[in-house]
């Protein structure tokens, strides 16, 4: 299940969906909005997505994870819209019989989502200016 959401993430509900009788391991990753980036204080940020393509690409990444790793279930939800410091921006959850596959698939999914899903981050700074990350401040990914 891949989803772009304009609502706060309900981590408890997301985790519950990963519970399967065959699962002996669950790994998750949460990306949070932090108060600094590239040496500047960050006041708040907003995510924008190209929803039609983002949905397809996100689903493709989850399917790749199911093919590559011995897992039972995988899901990812990414926020869009305005977020505050400390908010959860992205959640990845993987259930597997054993922990190695759960960790590996979780890492694979978040890395591929960051690199491929058409989502953009606009940071607003305490000074009042704002900028699109990657497009204006650096050409390489972090």
């Amino acid at each position, binding site marked *: 299940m891949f989803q772009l959401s304009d609502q706060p993430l309900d981590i408890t509900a997301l985790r519950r969906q990963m519970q399967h009788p065959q699962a002996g391991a669950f790994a998750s990753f949460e990306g949070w909005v932090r108060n600094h980036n590239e040496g500047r204080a960050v006041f708040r940020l907003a995510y924008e997505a190209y929803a039609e*393509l983002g949905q*397809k690409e996100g689903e493709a990444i989850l399917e790749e994870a199911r093919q590559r790793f011995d897992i039972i279930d995988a899901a990812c939800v990414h926020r869009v819209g305005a977020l505050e410091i400390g908010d959860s921006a992205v959640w990845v959850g993987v259930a597997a019989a054993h922990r190695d596959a759960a960790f590996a698939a979780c890492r694979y999914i978040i890395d591929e989502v960051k690199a491929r899903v058409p989502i953009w981050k606009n940071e607003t700074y305490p000074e009042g200016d704002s900028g699109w990350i990657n497009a204006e401040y650096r050409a390489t990914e972090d």
Partner: protein
Amino acid sequence: MSISLKLRYFAALRDQVGREEEILELPVNTPEELYAALQQRYGLTLEPASLRVAVNDCFVPMDSPLAQGDQVVFIPPVAGG
């Protein structure tokens, strides 16, 4: 020959173009040629090498053929997570 294309803009490109979408008639054959025309028209600063392109909601190579009525979206460097 000019073809009619539906363009949608996101993030830094939307800011630079000043709109979310538009329909343009342009004598272009590929996304590569289209982006060059848009750079000229709007003074876009993103290098073509930093972009990906989606036609009708699918990623395609920058030199793939464009057809009448295609929807084209240039994808600036992404920054999710």
